Every structure is written in C-alpha cells, then in structure tokens.
C-alpha cells in the first residue's frame, strides 16, 4: 500500500469518526459562533468590527482549531489506537498526512462558516474582485494550520497535561499564519483601503509556510510518536 493510499484511508477514518460523533457540528461550530458573538459584544462599534473582522475570523479559527486537534488525537489515544498504528507498522507519514487532511477539511468548513458569520454579524462585504484571493488564502492558510496542528497534536498526545501544552506549542508556531492570513483577507475584503494586489505576497508566505511544515511534519511525525 502506498503512503498516499493509506493517508486517504486514515483521513476517511477521521472524517467518519466526526460524522458518527457529531462533535464538529454540535460542539466546535457552536463554540466558534459564540466566539464571534463575544467579539461583537466586546467591540461594540460597527466601524471597529469591520476594521478588525479578518483578524477576528482567524483568531476564532485558531481557538477552534485547538479543540479540533485535541479531539483528533483524543480518539487515537482513548483505546491505544495510535500505539496500535505504530505497532502495526503503518507508515507514520501516511498517518500524518491523513490526519492533516481530515483536519484541513474541517478547518475549511469552519473558516467558511466564520466568514459567513463575519458578514452577518459584523456587516462585512466581499467585493467581486476579492473572491480569488479569498479562496486562495483560505486554502493555503488551512494547509499551514492543519500541518502545524497535526504535528504538535501528535507531539502533545504522548504527554500528561496535553490540554495546556498544545496551545503553548501551537500558538507561537501559527503566528505567521495569523498575520499572513489576516493581511491577505483584509486585502480580499478591501478592509481599510487595502487592495487585492496587497494580498498576494501574504499568500506566498502562507504557501511557503504550509509546504515547510507539511514536509517537516511528515518527516518528523514518526520519531515524535515513537517517543
């Protein structure tokens, strides 16, 4: 079995688990929605909300991502399945890529919902010429977040206190994604006079980040879960 084929099997398994348990729909999406509402209460002025909406979308994405990552590895450790995968000699690169792909799918859905929430709650609008940049930004940022989240989720899974360790490890690592994705979405939405062309360099940064962490994560994941 090739690495990519096993990665597809792992991704399908993770998405099936979420489909069966409904944790994403019943807990993560409501949590993300409540976060957006809380932001709206805290910044109770339309002009401020519209100015900071892109950043709030990505902050809410990252908070929710922590829940998703912890969940993704809780299902692996509850009955020793991650150990069993390792014992069975399943290619750790395939485990990493499969879990990252499943996390990426969920993150993408989450980001679309959060953007919709920003439109509804904050009065944000999406200009016609910003759609391509917006979709490219979401895609590249999602890949980066999924790569980092899966890598550190696997690392933290073997430790006690993993719930507090994960954000400590993850947030500094995803800071470039937060900055780059926020600037690129600001350009796509035309926030504070930004134009679409301002966003593409940030997309380049996001793509480099995703490739670097994707390749590094695939190589490092095996030794990490073997420890």
């Amino acid at each position, binding site marked *: *079995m090739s690495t990519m084929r*096993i990665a597809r*099997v792992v991704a399908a*398994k993770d998405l*099936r*688990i979420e489909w*069966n*348990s409904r944790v994403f729909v019943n807990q993560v999406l409501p949590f993300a929605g409540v976060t957006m509402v809380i932001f709206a209460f805290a910044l109770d002025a339309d002009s401020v909300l519209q100015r900071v909406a892109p950043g709030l979308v990505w902050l809410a994405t990252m908070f929710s991502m922590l829940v998703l990552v912890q969940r993704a590895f809780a*299902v692996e450790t*509850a*009955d*020793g*399945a991650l*150990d*069993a*995968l390792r*014992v*069975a*000699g*399943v290619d750790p690169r395939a485990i990493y890529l499969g879990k990252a792909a499943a996390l990426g799918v969920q993150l993408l859905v989450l980001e679309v919902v959060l953007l919709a929430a920003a439109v509804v709650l904050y009065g944000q609008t999406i200009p016609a010429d910003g759609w391509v940049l917006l979709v490219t930004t979401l895609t590249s940022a999602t890949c980066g977040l999924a790569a980092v989240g899966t890598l550190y989720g696997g690392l933290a899974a073997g430790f006690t206190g993993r719930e507090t360790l994960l954000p400590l490890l993850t947030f500094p690592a995803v800071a470039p994604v937060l900055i780059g994705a926020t600037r690129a979405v600001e350009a796509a939405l035309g926030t504070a006079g930004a134009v679409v062309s301002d966003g593409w360099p940030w997309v380049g940064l996001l793509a480099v980040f995703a490739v670097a962490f994707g390749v590094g994560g695939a190589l490092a994941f095996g030794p990490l879960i073997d420890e």
Partner: protein
Amino acid sequence: MSVVDLDDAVAVLGRFPALAGATLRVEEGEIVLLRGPNGAGKTTLLRLCAGLLPLVRGTGTVLGLDLATHRESIRRTVGFLGHQNGLYLDLTVAENVRFWGSTVGASDAEMHAAMSRLDVAGRVADVAVSKLSAGQKRRAALACLIARRAQLWLLDEPHAGLDASARDELDDTLRQAAASGATMLVASHELDRAGSLATRTVDVVAGRVLEVPGAPGSGNQAGTGAEEGR
C-alpha cells in the same frame, strides 16, 4: 521454518537489559504461554518479537525476517494486543475492521471473514465500539488483527480487565483461532486459563527463557520448544 527463532537475544529498556540472552523457538500453530513475575521480561520479549525494540545482541528472526534488519516489515506481519484494544470507540465494529483491513489492502471478503470468525459479523457489527462489553471489544480487536493479516499473535495479558464471562468468551475465541492454525505468544498471570489454551509453557525469569517440563501443554510439542535460557 520457525515462526519465532531467538538465539541469545538481548534487548534493553533504557540501559537495563530487560532480556538478557533469551533463546526461544516457536513453530507454526503453537500457542506458547509466557509466565513469570512482573518485570521478568515477558512484555519485552513480546515487544522484541513485534519489532518494537531493537535486538542489541544475539540473533533472531520472526516469520523469517531478521529482527536486526527488518523490524518495520515484521511490524506489518505480526499482531500485538496489549492491555488496550487499539479500537476507535466512535466507529462501529465493522468500520474498525474495515479501517484496519484497508491499511493492508484487505478485500471486503477478507474483512467479513475476519468478523465472522470472531463472531462479530451480525448485529454487533453495526454497534459503536463504545457501547460494547469488554469481551466484545476484545473480540473486535482480534478481528482487526485477522483483517490486517497478522500471522503471529502477540497477546500481553489478554484476560486483564475482563469479567468471568468475557474471559470465557475470549478463551473460546482463542481456541477457535488456534484450531484454524494461528500461532500465538501469550504473556499472562492467569495461568489456569492461559495454561489450558497453551500447547507449551515457558518461564521468563530475569530476562531469560526456561522450558517448563510438565507445565500445561508442555509435552504437546516435543522437540519444537523453547530452549533453555542461560
């Protein structure tokens, strides 16, 4: 060809030699009970045979693959079942078996046969693992081992955490598997139960393997057995 063939095998945990020159041979179809006190090296012996620990000294093969050079390949051909079952609690039994079978490219027929053999192919197949009894979970875990074509079963305290009826179920399951030719190494403190299943019993003492004359099953496989540890 022996399924397991260890000669003067040494394996270390940290710097401690948990196996200190173990010699053991297991033939196809045997069920070998490993008995011994805690810390004697039973689990280390199973983990060495599973390719999870490096062979520091001596020689060893599992299913014809060299423990010194082919540990990854060995992992793919053996099934190790410890205190946990390695199942996904939010998936059904069928989904778990399908997942583990898919990691080795098993066909639908193979996966269904694995579930049938462990008696989890009926209504139980569509029940989430989290809702199963401990004995049913153990059977589901063994079905996953079969689905992923494990040729050697390494069972570490398989009765742990099971009530009396679940232990009976497990014993029946292992007897059926043995009858159809499965080869097993079983580490257990449940000597009455595991001993009645075993075709041979060996003691693991201070990291070495000793033949047990007269122990349950010890006379059934004369000439194939464990060699004395040193």
